[in-house]
């Protein structure tokens, strides 16, 4: 049964050209990031003051930065950071969001009211400024950033899963499970959540893109990933001050962010189109 579903999904996804492109981009980024030591031509933190701000050349395909470090190597290693931030942050958001959303949707009543009002409160804060404030209080480090981005990004996920569960929990198989005397936990984990995961998968994919953007923005502002660890955001910051003499220092990390975020968004849309039965039905 599961196999058949996966097959059906793949059949549909395969025809979604943009989604497929996105998947390829993401896959490529994965490979390059995971094998960063293989792909990066130089040590990303090797300082060479003899070759400061050199334009792209055979030796340095994407040029060098203010300390003579190879931009290509820094972007490749920065990709690791971006992926890691994206996945861990979204992982946290998903776990928190699914848990609270499931609670709210399944138990309804005052549990629902409390959780959803809390979600409303959280949504009132402008997320980016909330992150700024929290990071300013904590020591800026990659771990803090991942946790903070995750901890401020679960609300959408919670709403999604709650809505999904409200409809799923009235289905016959849930009633059947209940009639058989299954515990709440079993019903939630075995019967409801697996059937409510489709939108979560889509939201998570799109969430990775958003998390990567947030990390870049924080690093750009100097409160994200700290030097000498390269991240696309902090390469961009360095590029800002020398944009007139070293366009490559802003252009390439900017492109890296653009392509990655686009890749994840396309992938997310592809998955959604392939997975979402309502959407499929809507299209006829």
């Amino acid at each position, binding site marked *: 049964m599961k196999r058949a579903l996966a097959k059906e999904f793949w059949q549909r996804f395969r025809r979604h050209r943009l989604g497929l492109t996105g998947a390829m981009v993401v896959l490529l980024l994965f490979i390059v990031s995971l094998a960063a030591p293989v792909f990066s031509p130089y040590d990303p933190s090797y*300082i060479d*003051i003899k070759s400061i701000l050199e334009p792209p050349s055979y030796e340095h395909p994407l040029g060098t930065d203010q*300390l003579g470090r190879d931009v290509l190597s820094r972007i490749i290693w920065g990709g690791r950071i971006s992926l890691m931030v994206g996945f861990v942050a979204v992982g946290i958001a998903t776990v928190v969001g699914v848990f609270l959303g499931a609670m709210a949707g399944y138990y309804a009543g005052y549990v629902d009211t409390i959780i959803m009002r809390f979600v409303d409160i959280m949504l009132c804060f402008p997320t980016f400024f909330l992150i700024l404030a929290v990071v300013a209080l904590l020591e*800026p480090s990659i771990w803090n950033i991942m946790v903070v981005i995750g901890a401020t990004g679960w609300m959408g996920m919670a709403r999604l899963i709650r809505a999904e569960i409200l409809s799923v929990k009235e289905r016959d198989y849930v009633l059947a499970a209940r009639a058989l005397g299954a515990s709440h936990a079993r019903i939630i984990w075995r019967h409801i959540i697996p059937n409510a995961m489709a939108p979560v998968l889509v939201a998570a994919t799109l969430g990775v893109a958003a998390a990567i953007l947030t990390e870049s923005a924080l690093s750009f502002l100097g409160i994200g990933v700290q*030097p000498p660890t390269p991240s696309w955001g902090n390469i961009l910051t*360095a590029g800002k001050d020398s944009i*007139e003499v070293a366009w490559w220092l802003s252009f390439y990390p900017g492109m890296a962010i653009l392509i990655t975020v686009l890749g994840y968004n396309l992938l997310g849309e592809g998955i959604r189109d392939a997975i979402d039965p309502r959407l499929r039905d809507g299209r006829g």
Partner: protein
Amino acid sequence: MPYNASLDMKTPAKIWEISGRMFLAWGFFVLLSCLACSPPGGGSETPGRPAEAGPPCYGDTLITGSIGEPSNLIPILASDSSSHEVAGLIYNGLVKYDKDLKLVGDLAESFEVSKSGLVITFHLRKGVRWHDGQPFTAADVLFTYKTMVDPHTPTAYAEDFLQVEKAEAADPYTFRVTYKKPFAPALASWGISILPGHLLEGRDIMKSPLARHPVGTGPFIFKEWKTGEKVVLAYNPDYFEGRPYIDRYIYRIIPDSATMFMELKAGGIDNMGLTPLQYARQTEYRKFKENFNKYRYPAFAYTYLGFNLEDEKFRDRRVRQAVSYAIDRGEIIEGVLLGLGQEATGPYKPGTWAYNPNVKRYPYDAVKARELLQEAGWRDTDGDGILDKDGIPFRFTIITNQGNDIRARTAEIIQRRLKEVGIDVKIRIIEWAAFIKEFIEKKTFEATILGWTITQDPDIYDVWHSSKNKPGELNFISYRNTEVDALLERGRRTFDQEERRKIYWRIQEILAEEVPYVFLYVPDALPVVQARFKGIEPAAAGITYNLIKWYVPKAEQRYKMIAHSS
């Protein structure tokens, strides 16, 4: 020039701010407020056009770009360089530094120092008026003194005035101060801005409207302050040294040096301090050189890596020496300052009388660094590439302030070099206010990259005396050396320059041996001014000491003055 030389150069809190937030624009700072530059010719660049062009004439506006915004235009209450830059054009001191960095009278027409050095008599200029028309007299000076020593005045500059035993206004144009003990920086301390007593007497200075609408005696009259945007000053037609040629002075706040540079090229501002990158790589083309004159001279400032000496790791002198050997200053000057600076070996500027050229130096030597660390007990016993001692790996964090790329990059280079000798360094860049309040004042740092301005008077008591290590004071690294303490005390109690030279040279020897700071570099100031401004004469004091003599030939003037309304 009415800049409060001693204020700008001496006062501790001010030094901080410059060294901190303004450091990104240090070139700019030096350009505007310091009297701090090498003798003419010493590395200054020939302007693109001859400085003389026709007879001086009145008119036009000078627009200066600044990263920081003034906080308070009662300068004794402000500790940021922006406030002092602007206030320096509005107020005068009793004395000032001239273009050769000699103390001369400002509001004081002349002054006499008694044989003992304990009594200074100032003869004040007659006929000077405050911008509101009231006459300036010795009562204003006395009021300023009383305000300075009033414990309720939240000023960072009281120390010099607490040395005064008696201050009196003998008559409206004679002011006399008597010191308890000889105090070498005494005369220079009277460069502080004299405040209008008639507007402040008997009122709470903290609530005074003068903070945002200052009234002074200086060459420019305050007109308007738009928060976050600009401060506008207009010429003082009655200025006692003659009215400035320039009609208006606008201080524009642009908190980003790349943006500021674009504004400069677009004509939105007329002068700023360039970053080394801008100086070396973005201004070397004909059109720029036709439109702007660049200047370059060593700043009266140095940047250092300071250790928190309360920290167990840094108690051992050999460790500090090892760090000093492991850092390649040439590489930092080359890579970060693009060669626009020189090595620092102590807290004074190379070439000045207080500077000792013969102190122990630490040329880059990783082998020696490792030896010293090993002697101090740091060995890599677990083979992870990081030295350890008693099971504790040698790790520390260097903090520096945000908004200062040059320092951040310096930190990255140091980090790499220390890694090579087995020390794992983390870098943390912190927003300025939190940096000072949470880390420096509370001494919760391990090491920091910061800068000090170098004062005209070599008295560095506030930074190095062991008594100055309380929270908020300037010896925040907790340096303690009884010989240095004694020398500092003696150094401020004698007027004999030769004797003082010996004292301060000895202090530099000790500091070089003990390495409480790793002295890194003395950067160059890199001001740039739009080429239509004439009359700029680079001197030991920099370029802005004669701002009132700058002018723009009629044909080249850009801005019309609205009718003067004072």
